[in-house]
């Protein structure tokens, strides 16, 4: 597909070809998935669905499922990438989870997006679909008093098809392994700190999305190579259609009109955050494992840097870190906005 970039094809046509190619690729790779438990018959016409890939996240799953159940997600579609920690059995036993299993390479499957795009294609059409990782927790304006259906109803009424939620890295005050994360625990009891205002934004004109970087990872691990810092822009909530596809992780989509979730005339549109509970006691172990597998983006450059940084006891916390309170705090800081949703 990269070769297409060099051909003199007009952007519009190129995007169309890329979109169809990505959808076709996802359909073709559906055979990599083997069905373990199919409860998709339970899905109602207006249900909000969650699509998740996971690998060895057994400890995190109970809180993750409860969090999104409470928000109003009605059904979870999981792809289990060859877990060995019993998470497969755990998910199989959940009444609102449909589970697929694969041992195909994460990297070779566009970091799991091929699998999820197939499930989105097959089951997501016409639904509001939330595509998240097991360590991402959606926070949106008024999330303490209004369920996710209130948000999706409002988005639908206002003619929006997608909702942005920037990834907000959360970290503990001390060393990562100082407090051990227990199963079922709210991860933000431990990792409750975040960086308030060191994010960089640029616009990608080909796909129309904003490219957001920065935060504690860039500040700590990439201060002299900001370009390599992780991308934080995400669009996890979409009223799905078979014609849509995620382009790169959940950072951006095709068709590109789905990426226009920001106002360019000075106004604010509604947006949320994905609180990222990656930096817990489980991280050190995980980063060693992931480094060995080499299945992550850009040759696992990120994991390499973290590993090097965290070996000598580096901490993410600094005196300017803020302690997380609620969505209103994030709105005051300008990380999210309630836009036109009073």
């Amino acid at each position, binding site marked *: 597909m990269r070769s297409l970039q060099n051909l003199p094809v007009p952007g519009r046509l190129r995007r169309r070809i890329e979109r169809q190619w990505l959808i076709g690729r996802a359909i073709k790779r559906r055979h990599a998935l083997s069905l373990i438990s199919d409860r998709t018959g339970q899905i109602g016409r207006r249900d909000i669905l969650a699509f998740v890939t996971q690998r060895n996240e057994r400890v995190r799953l109970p809180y993750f499922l409860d969090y999104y159940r409470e928000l109003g997600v009605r059904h979870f579609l999981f792809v289990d990438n060859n877990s060995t920690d019993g998470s497969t059995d755990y998910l199989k036993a959940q009444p609102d989870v449909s589970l697929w299993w694969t041992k195909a390479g994460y990297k070779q499957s566009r970091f799991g997006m091929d699998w999820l795009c197939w499930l989105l294609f097959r089951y997501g059409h016409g639904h509001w679909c939330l595509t998240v990782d097991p360590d991402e927790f959606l926070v949106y304006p008024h999330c303490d008093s209004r369920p996710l259906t209130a948000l999706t109803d409002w988005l639908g009424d206002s003619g929006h098809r997608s909702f942005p939620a920037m990834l907000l890295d959360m970290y503990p005050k001390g060393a990562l392994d100082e407090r051990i994360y227990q199963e079922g625990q709210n991860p933000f009891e431990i990792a409750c700190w975040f960086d308030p205002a060191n994010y960089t934004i640029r616009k990608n004109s080909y796909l129309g999305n904003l490219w957001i970087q920065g935060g504690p990872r860039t500040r700590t691990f990439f201060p002299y190579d900001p370009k390599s810092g992780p991308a934080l822009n995400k669009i996890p909530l979409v009223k799905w259609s078979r014609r849509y596809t995620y382009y790169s992780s959940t950072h951006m989509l095709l068709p590109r009109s789905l990426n226009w979730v920001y106002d360019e005339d000075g106004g604010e549109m509604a947006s949320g955050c994905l609180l990222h509970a990656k930096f817990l006691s489980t991280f050190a172990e995980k980063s060693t494992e992931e480094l060995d597998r080499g299945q992550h983006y850009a040759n696992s450059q990120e994991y390499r840097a973290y590993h090097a940084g965290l070996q000598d006891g580096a901490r993410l916390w600094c005196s300017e870190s803020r302690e997380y309170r609620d969505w209103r705090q994030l709105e005051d800081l300008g990380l*999210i906005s309630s836009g036109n949703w009073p």
Partner: protein
Amino acid sequence: MTEAVNLGVILLCHANLRMAARMARIWADGGARVVIHIDAKAPASDVAEMKQSLSDLPDIAYSRRIRCNWGRFSLIEATQHAASQLLETWPETTHVYLASGSCLPLRPIADLRAFLALDPNRDYIESVDTNEVGWVIGGLNEERFTLYFPVDWRKHRKLFDRCVEIQRKLGIRRKLPRGLTPHLGSQWWCLTANTLRAILNDPRRKEYDRFFRRSWIPDESYFQSLARRHSGSIESRSLTFARFDHRGRPYQAYDDHLQVLEEANCFVARKIWPGATQLLGYFPRPAGPGPDPTPPQPANIERLIARTVSRRILGRPGLYMQSRFPRKDSENGKTSAPYAVFQGLTDIFPGFEDWLRDYLPGDVHGHLLGPEMVEFAGRPEIGPGALSSSAVLRDYDPQGFLTALIRMTEQMQVFQFSPRDNQDLNWFMATDPNAYLFVVTGAWNLPLLDMDMPFDDIRRITAKLQRTEMELLEVLNSVWVKARVQLWEFNDFIARPQAILDKALGQIDPDAKPVTKLPPMRDITGLPEHLQRLRNSGLHPRLTGDQPITKASHILARNNI
């Protein structure tokens, strides 16, 4: 007193009939007679279920079902049928309230009756002359009446817009019926039976109907215009609280609005999110010991809505984030607060930064845009907002860096600048009304005086810095400048630094204490010779001004080369 008011309600329902049935029950329980119009498009099973659930209430009737299309005359037709039926079935009705199936009464119906009884001949209908601009948000105003609308907007938006455009070009103007002044207003009203009867029985009704059949969104103009012809006393406001966003879509109420809705003391609110169970359970409030006729006081909720509208349209100044990324010059405020930039002063006074801290109340930083690092006040590794002091990281998005810093800090930000620093923000700062820029030109020459470097290198650096500063001056002298800029030539500044600094600081902070003592100045004794030497080497130093030069030193300089 309340006996004088016999309230009839027309309930227009199209979707969510379960909620509509609930509303009908509230009205009927409150002693109102209700005529329900159900859109002909509603599924038969839902209608049957609704009728079944309301079968125990005697004072409910159903009017002829019409297929209603949004923005078309069918809505008026449905209202007319229901109104005629209401007035025929219950001729003793004194007031008719038009509500929808998703309008929630917030106060007991007895309160509404008591309120109407205060002035029984008054019609409560918002009715604004179309010549008065400003009622319509994001839509057609007067053209609703003067153009033709053959296609449905919801189904064929592009065609609709094209139609309007073509008619505008052709200069098409429909004739208004004689004597009719079009008025617009909220589609939810409460009219006295007399006024409503007069509208329905108007001898020219056919003519009016024909006219409004072709108008755009007649439910916001039919009764609003005709009431002006027939009513003796109009109070131009709607008793139903409904507000629209900048695109003309109604705002919805959720559970967390409970308190603000209660404070607003409105009779009826539209529209409620169907899942707001807490609201639907809480309202309408049970009747108190006696009816309470106080009028609505929606000031608080209006403020909430005004804040939302301004946030959606204007946004918060100086904020750049995932859902607000204004293009250049559409920022509605490039930065969120005033800040001051001093160029050249650290070159003249090496201790300027510390000195300035005593005179200005803000955070005084060093060279924030400096080439080696971000010189935050006190030189921490991580500055306000967790901004890194890495210059590489800052230069990755300098504008984001500066705006975030200004937005994150509570005090005024003051920093030093020089041609050695990152120049990417020159236009940004020059066109930002929040910026105070103070520039002493040519001051960057001074540190080069005691630089222990080969003359060729000094000459090269001088040329580069001079070019950079001249580019900045070009920006600062352009017609686009919005910042408050003060420029001094080095010579002028050196002649009376204390007075100039005093004035400059007074401009930033009117309460700044007078400048009485200056920080130690860098030694400038060798400057004339240095400049002459540059001149002799073929470079033309332009920004430092003419330095008086003694003959002896002139010869000295020449001999050195």
